[in-house]
């Protein structure tokens, strides 16, 4: 694995800016991989052995993805929407896994670690670089049962929604009223389709604005 400084630079570039979340994410990922016995997770020989669960969609999630090489599209990065600054690193080969949670107490500790810096964000950023893992994180060994339908690799499972005909991958279909359905048909959608009438009205509005 590259050094912390190199990984931090890389992560800041990929994310778009350098922030304390990047520092926390990079350190979390380095420590997580070390503890499950993957010293170079982005290397070809190790890339398929790792699954990472991130529990927030914040800056640190991008840093973790950069350092570990875990990607949503590769199915090696899983988003669990808990709103907790935490991630779990799983070695699929050995079953070894650790969950690392960022300690809230590290925020207050940052003031004493870098008193010379006035700006709170900069203070945290610098302090998190040098703080011990014990001060920064709560780490616990865990077991994760990775479902067959969550495994990386080629698509093994496909179903067809009996209402709308949509192909559903990876066993996300549900049974409702004796029919196999996609989740939007069975459980509702997060979006509302714009009706033709509304569409035309929106176009008119836009047209007026342009004029």
């Amino acid at each position, binding site marked *: 694995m590259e050094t912390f400084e190199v990984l931090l630079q890389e992560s800041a570039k990929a994310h778009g800016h350098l922030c304390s979340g990047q520092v926390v994410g990079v350190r979390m990922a380095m420590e997580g991989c070390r503890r499950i016995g993957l010293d170079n997770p982005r290397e070809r020989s190790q890339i398929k052995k790792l699954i990472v669960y991130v529990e927030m969609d914040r800056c640190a999630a991008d840093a973790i993805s950069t350092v570990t090489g875990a990607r949503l599209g590769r199915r090696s990065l899983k988003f669990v929407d808990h709103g907790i600054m935490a991630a779990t690193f799983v070695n699929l080969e050995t*079953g070894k896994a650790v969950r690392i949670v960022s300690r809230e107490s590290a925020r207050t500790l940052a003031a004493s670690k870098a008193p010379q810096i006035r700006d709170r964000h900069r203070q945290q950023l610098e302090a998190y670089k040098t703080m011990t893992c014990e001060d920064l994180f709560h780490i616990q060994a865990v077991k994760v049962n990775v479902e*067959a*339908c969550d495994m990386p690799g080629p698509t093994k499972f496909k179903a067809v929604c009996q209402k709308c005909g949509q192909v559903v991958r990876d*066993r996300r279909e549900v049974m409702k009223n004796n029919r196999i359905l996609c989740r939007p048909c069975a459980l509702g959608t997060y979006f509302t389709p714009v009706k033709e009438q509304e569409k035309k009205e929106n176009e008119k509005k836009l047209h007026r604005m342009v004029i």
Partner: protein
Amino acid sequence: MKKNYTAWSFKTIPVDQAVGTAVTHDMTQVIPGKFKGPAFKKGHEITSGDLCRLMQMGKNNLYVLDLKTGQIHEDDAVMELASALAGPGVTFSGIPSEGKLELRAAYSGLFKVNVFALEAFNMLPDVMCASIHTHTPVTKNQSLAATRAIPLVILRADLDQAVALAKEHFPVFSVTLFLPLKIRLIITGDEVYKGLIQDRFQAIVKEKVTRLGGTLEESVILPDNQDRISRQIQEFLEKDTDLIITTGGMSVDPDDVTKEAIEDSGFEQIHYSSAVLPGAMFLLGYHGRTTIMGLPACGLYHRTTIFDLILPRVMAGETPGARDLARLGHGGLCLNCNTCRFPACSFGKPG
């Protein structure tokens, strides 16, 4: 049927010569009353430190596997078996343990088994699958079934046959979502209507329907008056009602008029009486998209009755008929245990 595995090309080596070789399958250790699980996982490289534990487990010889064409390791086989058996709402781990995979509920709902297909599957050589009963309400992650290839190595042809059978009867196992039904309740009885006794049915029904995701929209108390009960049912039918539940008045006394009131209300299908105790005088009917259930008064005394067997099925969108009510006879006798363990008992589990 057991095959003659001695003809297969397993190489056996004494355990003291096994240092450096990889374990070919998960090796189970049993310590009575304390532990049963894999002591060594497949792929584990045996070290000199492991020899003592292996001998304590009674392993003096180990297999070295040399898979020939047409032979499948149990871990690969069980993945194919689970994939073929598991329908919507059924999930399983990506990593088999001890050659076995546990099938679990991906979400809460009604677990359904194609019992005929499961039996046919278990008639095939070298595979097995055991499940809990069909029509059991289950919660997310609950264990539903487990499957495995019985020998360490299975023939590709046998595996293909089992997979084909499961696919032909797809889904052998599935979990159906409970529907958020709108429910209206009519509590009948002069004694409750006049306030001589306090109603307890509403609380019981509300608890049981809301647990499965239904909503009790309305509830009324009526005297044992056939005409009034019938008019109330019709009023509920005109509203947006998925399920009407009546309580009481299902027996044979002159004051028991609820059954007649339901019959007057224009239901296309009515099934009266079930092969279940408690709950023989249960009524189940259908009118358009609305279901009606007539609960006998036994529901006030017994914690578990026919209502607990039929409600989950109706909540899952099923429309059980006379045959279903008759089939419940086998396993339909509640033992009235001092401590009720339902659903972990034989009640309502036709075999």
